[in-house]
């Protein structure tokens, strides 16, 4: 927030708590009265901090720093009692909260510290006050409101800065994850390109066939590298689905033709006769079920059984893709749908993340159950084109 925005926000808060020019005048009127009490208040404040290791540990500069901080606190108290609550004043308060995040001071100490100062100020005021009792109450009220406003700004700053820092570190972590996943998938094709180039430049007697072979290999791996980048950017900008009804049985037949399974994997498709047509973007759902079939195949390197079962369920259709493969350890199960998470030697780790993202856009969902050593079942839920119970889709 810039200084003007901050000030507008402060004015809005002032309005909210009913702060008036009279309040400002009242606080200003006690400024001179309290000025001689301020050094004692400040001394008491730092003596108390000294007794709390958690608060004390953020002061790393020793006695010299404490002396400086006492100066800052005195200045803060004088500004508080100055009666002048302009944009500069608010910016100073904002800085307090920002600074607390920077030095790692828990917000709870800001609250309690302000409470301690409030008590001290009110006590000192009682000690020096000689005027009318009713006016004393009004002055106390104004002082309390002013301190509450200060605290609101400091906390606001604390939260804004804290969130900003959190987001920065999360962004960095995400960049690191993407870099790691992409690095492997790009360096392998680059490795082939580089070694082919080396061969072409340095081989002593390459035959024309060998030269052609290496040139073709370079071209092939440039395409592989390009495919990695395409996959990533496709994931980043998934198009909005075009929802239309489509029949499941022919859809699955085509899909298995596109994703042939090895001889040692037995396939069964079992759709209940009353399974209705599905509602979704068939092209996108093809990616989802294709990924699930490919995963199942990779989970069964020694062969096994792939069963695809579908049944109606209320306004939806459930499609279970079950394998008898290696299964997924419990500790990985939470993470397998995260983008760029992979336990495989090859691949970006986008398959299930894409599946889940597509299903969300197609108003469906994806569930997984797995038993290490027994196999995994991925269940896709999609809307039925004509709901069995006559309920209308919204």
């Amino acid at each position, binding site marked *: 927030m810039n200084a003007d925005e901050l000030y507008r926000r402060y004015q809005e808060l002032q309005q909210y708590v009913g702060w008036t020019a009279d309040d400002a005048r009242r606080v200003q009127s006690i400024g001179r009265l309290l000025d001689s009490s301020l050094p004692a208040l400040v001394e008491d404040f730092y003596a108390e901090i000294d007794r709390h290791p958690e608060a004390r540990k953020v002061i790393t500069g020793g006695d010299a720093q404490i002396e400086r901080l006492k100066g800052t606190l005195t200045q803060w108290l004088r500004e508080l009692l100055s009666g002048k609550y302009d944009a500069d004043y608010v910016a100073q308060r904002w800085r307090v909260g920002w600074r607390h995040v920077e030095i790692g001071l828990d917000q709870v100490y800001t609250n309690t510290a302000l409470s301690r100062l409030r008590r001290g100020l009110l006590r000192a005021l009682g000690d020096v006050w000689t005027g009318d009792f009713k006016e004393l109450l009004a002055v106390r009220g104004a002082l309390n409101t002013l301190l509450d406003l200060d605290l609101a700004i400091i906390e606001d700053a604390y939260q804004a800065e804290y969130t900003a820092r959190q987001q920065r570190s999360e962004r960095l972590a995400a960049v690191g994850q993407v870099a*790691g996943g992409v*690095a*492997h*998938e790009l*360096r*392998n094709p*680059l*490795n*082939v*390109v*580089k*070694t*082919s180039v*080396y*061969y072409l430049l*340095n*081989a*002593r*007697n*390459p035959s024309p066939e*060998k030269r052609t072979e*290496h040139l073709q*290999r370079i071209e*092939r*791996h440039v395409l592989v590298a390009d495919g990695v980048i395409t996959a990533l950017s496709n994931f980043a900008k998934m198009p909005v689905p075009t929802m239309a009804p489509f029949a499941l049985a022919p859809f699955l037949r085509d899909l298995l033709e596109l994703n042939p399974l090895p001889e040692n994997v037995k396939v069964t498709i079992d759709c209940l006769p009353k399974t209705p047509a599905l509602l979704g973007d068939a092209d996108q759902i093809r990616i989802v079920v294709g990924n699930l079939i490919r995963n199942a195949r990779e989970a069964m*390197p020694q062969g096994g059984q792939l069963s695809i079962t579908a049944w109606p369920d209320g306004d939806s259709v459930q499609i279970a893709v079950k394998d008898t493969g290696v299964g997924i350890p419990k500790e990985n199960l939470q993470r397998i749908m995260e983008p760029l998470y992979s336990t*495989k*030697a*090859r691949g970006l780790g986008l398959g299930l993340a894409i599946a889940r993202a597509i299903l969300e856009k197609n108003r469906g969902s994806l569930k997984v159950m797995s038993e290490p050593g027994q196999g995994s079942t991925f269940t896709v839920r999609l809307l039925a084109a004509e709901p069995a119970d006559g309920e209308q889709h919204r």
Partner: protein
Amino acid sequence: MTRTNDGPAILVVDDDLDTCRNLADILSDLGYRVTTANDGPSALKLVEERPFDVALLDLKMPGMDGLTLYREIKKRRADTVAIIVTAYAGGGTKEEALAAGAWHVLPKPVDPPKLLGLVDEALEQPLVMVVDDDPDLCQNLWDLLRERGYRVGVAHDEEEAGKRLKDRAFKVVLIDLKLPKGDGNQVFKLVRKNNPEARTVIITGHRSEMEQLVQSVLKEGADAVCYKPFDIPNLLGMLDKLAR
């Protein structure tokens, strides 16, 4: 004898077929004998059949990864020099691989001149063999001598030593005279027969008991004797003289 002058033997293991083909092309062009494998188990079968001077192993492969593969290779033929190639930068993998005894870890894409330089350097490292039934002693000598720039083969009994000696030409063979299976004196004779140019160092922990045998083996042509516990600097100095 299977050992011939066909050129040094290099094993290339990568699940990417094109990577294997490229390294095979580059290395065969330079006169090396190259064998490729696309996964750990088939690589191990090759290692069991014959010795390789250098193994270039991809780190991340489906099934058995390159580091596990190297550990298995080391159990079977400890004198194989391993260079591990990885597409992952950073992490603790490099340290782990080096601690397991891999010689170098190179990042992908590999720099061919650097790789070829390392292969040549590995081939220049003298081959020595330790014949001792104590696995801890073998491991210690392996670490010590590897560090010193030797390629170190290991055999725990007479039969194993015999097999190794038929496979490769060692510069120096360290022989424990007392072996539970077979006997060191026999191993010495096998060295003379199969590796006549090899120098031999007798190691024994039973000074008085074995002294007569030690003297007779020395007379027959053994180059030196080392008593346990070893005087390490002395042993290393002696090896350097014998091997280089």
